[in-house]
């Protein structure tokens, strides 16, 4: 083994900092839970927790895809529109063809997401439009297509078959179906990011795009892949959204991308790419949904939820900056210590 000279090297400090975020969110979550348990009467009931779980689930599914994109130093602002459009198509399909198997409808929803994600990917990786602009445009375009399809009408719950409506409410093994799906997506997402070679490239591309090019990584293809996966998971999210909120119009899931990106950022994914874990994102989503739920129970205005989300983002990023600065100071001290213990090599 390599011998460890000092007790705690800055490198180990850096490793520890990787875990800091998850621990921080868990602590924040504990504080939030304790607070709402005292202040809100219905907070600690099983039905309330299932409510939170169902809300979290849709966010987690979409946030896993968003994480792929943000890891590559890009962003996907169009996920809310994709959720809305694919969710509406799910409901419309079932309203007009009640006999179609639910699995087929889910696949259609995912396929729609893949198509829309591919558009994003091509705009960013091939047309080289900055992701924030490209997906801001598609956010509007997808929503426009959505409005054109609905033609101002909406679909309500009683137009939909019961077997679809009961999906969100069903509880296999005593756990909401949506939560099962979210857990499966999160586990597969985490495993992909850890074990699949092309998914490891997401980190490399986001961490240092030039170095990725030098290393011979096919960056454009990887970025397209990330956007397609984000679209696919937003499509799946649309399917889940339709089953949970079965009254859909042209405004369905408007602004949902903000909830997703909030969860991802609070979950510790660096907005400049290169670092972040699915575990963190799931915890981030749970934290955001729990706060949102608690505020509803306390009958606080919607405004306060939005305010608090913004506040949480600033806090999360500020803590990150602080930790990074501490780390760099520690590193600098180490370098100076090394320099003064050995004469510097000559350069001339």
């Amino acid at each position, binding site marked *: 083994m*390599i*011998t460890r*000279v000092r007790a705690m*090297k*800055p*490198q*180990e*400090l*850096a*490793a520890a900092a*990787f875990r800091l975020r998850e621990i921080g969110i868990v602590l924040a979550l504990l504080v939030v839970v304790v607070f709402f348990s005292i202040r809100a009467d219905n907070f600690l009931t099983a039905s309330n927790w299932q409510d939170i779980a169902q809300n979290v689930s849709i966010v987690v599914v979409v946030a896993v895809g968003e994480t792929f994109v943000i890891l590559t130093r890009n962003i996907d602002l169009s996920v809310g529109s994709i959720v809305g459009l694919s969710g509406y198509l799910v409901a419309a399909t079932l309203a007009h063809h009640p006999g179609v198997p639910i699995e087929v409808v889910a696949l259609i929803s995912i396929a729609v997401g893949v198509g829309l994600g591919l558009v994003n990917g091509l705009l960013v990786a091939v047309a080289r439009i900055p992701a924030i602009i490209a997906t801001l445009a598609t956010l509007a375009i997808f929503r426009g297509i959505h409005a054109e399809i609905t033609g101002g009408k909406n679909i309500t719950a009683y137009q939909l078959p019961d077997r679809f409506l009961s999906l969100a409410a069903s509880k296999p093994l005593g756990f909401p179906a949506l939560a099962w799906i979210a857990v499966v997506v999160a586990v597969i997402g985490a495993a992909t990011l*850890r*074990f*699949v*070679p092309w998914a*490891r*490239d997401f*980190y*490399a591309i*986001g*961490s*240092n795009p*030039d*170095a*990725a*090019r*030098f*290393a*011979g*990584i096919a960056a454009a293809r990887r970025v397209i892949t990330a956007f397609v996966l984000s679209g696919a998971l937003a499509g799946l999210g649309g399917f889940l959204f339709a089953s949970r909120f079965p009254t859909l119009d042209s405004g369905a899931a408007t602004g949902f991308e903000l909830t997703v990106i909030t969860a991802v950022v609070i979950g510790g994914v*660096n907005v400049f790419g*290169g*670092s972040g874990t699915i575990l963190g994102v799931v915890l981030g989503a749970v934290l955001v949904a729990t706060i949102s739920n608690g505020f509803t129970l306390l009958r606080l205005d919607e405004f306060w939820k939005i305010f608090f989300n913004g506040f949480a983002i600033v806090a999360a990023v500020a803590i990150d900056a602080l930790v990074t600065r501490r*780390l760099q*100071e520690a*590193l*600098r*001290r*180490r*370098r*100076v210590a*090394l*320099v*003064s213990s*050995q*004469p*510097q*090599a*000559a*350069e*001339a």
Partner: protein
Amino acid sequence: MSLLELHGISKSYGGVRAVDDVSFGIEAGTVHALVGENGAGKSTLVKVITGVIQPDAGELHIDGEPVSIGDAQTAHRLGIVAMYQEPTVFPDLSVAENVFAGRHPRSRLHTVAWRAMEDEAMRILRELGVDFGPGTPVRGLGVADRQLLEIAKALSTNARLLIMDEPTAALSPHEVDNLFATVRKLRERGVAVVYISHRLEEVGALADTVTVLRDGRHIETRPAGELSHGEIIRLMVGRSLDALFPKEEAEIGDVVFKADGLSRRGVFADISFDLRRGEIVGLAGFVGAGRTEVARSIFGVDPLDGGRIEIEGRPFRPRSPRAALRRGLAYLPEDRLHEGLVQPMSISDNTSMAVLPAVTAAGFLRPRLERSLARRFMQQLSIKATSPAQVVRSLSGGNQQKVVLGKWLAAEPRILILDEPTHGVDVGTKADVHRTISHLAAQGLTILLISSELPEILGMSDRVLVMREGRLVAELSRADATQENVIQAAAGVQEAA
């Protein structure tokens, strides 16, 4: 038959011939040193070999076959690997993943074989004798360790030709020994190593063959044993020092700047010196000695932890570059491309940036004033450009450097700190910049000149300060400042290295 042969390679940048009709061969199983002054064309040649840029003329042959190296990937495939001065690492990933980025070892299920990857990385790291492990996040590594990581990366590919560009610039002697042992091991394996270094001792210790470049031209390729250091220097320089450093005699006036006990925790300590009107004071030292850091703190970019500064007899607290400029102190940063210029903006936009009030009338910017300001400096500094509206990005490196100089001169400073003002510019421009600096001093400007090029320091300075490990270790008059004296002080040794 040579592993790699260059035939008549030429490359120009906007009229400047960076590489001019260069031909020589590199043999397998040898260390081939590439030497020459800054701007001699070494970096350009490396970029051609690694496919980063395409030559205007000439051919590359590998194993006698003509090849075209269109991009970095093609170079990789041909077994050509370059280690750059600036390590290209992934700070967010572990050491092992950095080594294997883009080509992870895979298990039977085509997943990343973490264990195999870390074991292999460990084997390479142990061979290099470094003190970090495969699981260490690279964010936690210093420059020297990142350099070693780059070598590990090259070792893990089966490189046939490894290019090392100043690999020892930030390494300690122990690390340099490790590196040399590794390079020799590579040579035994039949790898060709192209070794670029300013340190002739290293060239002598390591190289089998030496190629000398000067002003973009191939001067000589000979077995290292046939060339003495003196001869190499003569071939590299090929001209007398005075032509390059036209120092005007300036009248030295009163003390205008006084630093007393400046310190910044962990970076530098107890820095005290004076600057006089019309004086050029050289600040010498090795990379990492803390020279740039002192300059940044004086200019108010980084905070000072202690010490006092007086400018023209009145105390000065460096809170921000803005405050420093108001007191007549300007700083031309080393990294001009990032800190000194806004690349997509025009020459006139850049030169007026620090002096907007001077080109403003009734609260509005006056483009005509901006342009005439820019024209004045284009003339004074002989900036080669079509008009003040030309975008800075399209200028050559030397002309960009002059635009930065113009930008700070527009602020009419009385004290100017220049950090590596001729780093990476061609010889002609260098002489131009030197002439300008000397002329400015003769007009009464006080100049603190930071440079890693000893001849530049010795040729330009009225007085030389030497830093080592964050401390000021020597102050030498122009008469006492010889190459040996400065190097001894900078290296902290009794005998010259």
